[in-house]
């Protein structure tokens, strides 16, 4: 690629703040992939990745939240160990969990749009039903695209894909939504 050295095009201050927050949100989603909780309904442990997707939409709004998730996928594709179990590489983006991963930018955008509308305001002003509704729609987006991914990549039929890829995990998603409401209602996050 060509390198420009003649003039320096500085990034303006508002964008710097959003870029930094988007990068942190992407990295936090990656760090959440390492946190697993035992889950009685499935032998696979539950990670907090999806919580990172919710938070990107809630804290950054639809545009930067979606951008943060695109960043997450790009960094993972070129080798940052940010996917579940510390995986990385383009292979993960066309592997069994491909659908879930590709849905994250869309889900973060949907959650952000439903909670904030066009302009990103303080989360304290948003009612709990609206928060839960937005995240429920986000979960639907993630699992719909995830199940479609399982069907496309592994060639599973629809009922089998829904059973292995969605039904077992939905109770855990309810727990994560409860956690997300607890987070945005927390006194410790007034700065957000």
């Amino acid at each position, binding site marked *: 690629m060509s390198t420009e050295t003649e003039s320096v095009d500085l990034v303006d201050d508002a964008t710097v703040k959003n870029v*930094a927050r988007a990068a942190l*949100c992407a990295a936090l989603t990656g*760090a959440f992939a*390492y*946190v697993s909780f035992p889950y009685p309904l499935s032998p696979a442990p539950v990670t907090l990745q999806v919580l990172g997707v919710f938070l990107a939409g809630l804290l950054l709004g639809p545009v930067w939240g979606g951008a943060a998730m695109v960043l997450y996928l790009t960094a993972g594709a070129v080798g940052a160990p940010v996917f579940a179990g510390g995986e990385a590489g383009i292979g993960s983006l066309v592997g069994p969990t491909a659908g879930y991963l590709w849905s994250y930018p869309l889900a973060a955008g949907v959650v952000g749009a439903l909670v904030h509308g066009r302009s990103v305001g303080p989360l304290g002003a948003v009612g709990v039903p609206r928060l839960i509704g937005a995240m429920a729609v986000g979960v639907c987006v993630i699992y719909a695209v995830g199940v479609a991914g399982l069907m496309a990549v592994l*060639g599973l039929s629809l009922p089998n894909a829904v059973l*292995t890829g969605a039904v077992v995990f939905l109770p855990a998603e309810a727990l994560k939504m409860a956690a997300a409401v*607890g987070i945005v209602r927390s006194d410790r996050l007034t700065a957000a």
Partner: protein
Amino acid sequence: MLSYTPGSSLAHRLDPRTKLAAQIAFVVAAFAHTTPGGLAALTLLALGILASAHLSPYSAIYAYRFALPFLLVGPLIEGLTLGGFDLTRAFETGLASYRVLLILLVSAAYVRSTPVRESRAAIQWAVPGKPGAFLGMGTAFVFRLLPLLVADLKRAREAMNARLASERAVHERMALLAVTGVERALGRADGFSLALRARCFAWNPTLPALTFGRLDLPALALAAGLALSALY
């Protein structure tokens, strides 16, 4: 865990764009030729690619061990029918699972042999303008910030365990841990953006110049051949 390791293997000396093109062509070929014969040929190619990065197949498979249950469960559940076990359906899904395994192995070779700065330069070559600059700089930041945030969460978890957090409900523990994680991350974001502005953070920083070498020519030809093979 799979990550970049410095070295002088063939894969290390290739241009990152060549390696990305070869991976994408491999994916296309694997999806186009999901037959026993096609996958046998691609297995040999995948093993060759791993050898070119001095990476053993076992450590590559171990790096992707969390994807393996999905790959195994797929054929099993697809073969199960009310009347017994349908071998042909299980075999078809098994081929689909196996092609994913091959793709994972090939991407392991890229991750092993490509440093962040080269990937970043390749991203900014592929996506021009400010979106490319955002993706490039953001990718570099994620690589740098991830270990910090993982360490933050680990510390928070240790502190929680020391205070009998295991007695609490799971969603309370998730919320406690995540609040701490988000709080630290937002604090880091504010400090980070201040530091970026103090250092003249620009849309056009100086990146390593990428050049195609003599080695890239056969590798690119291979990528083109794989991509074209999908058509026949």
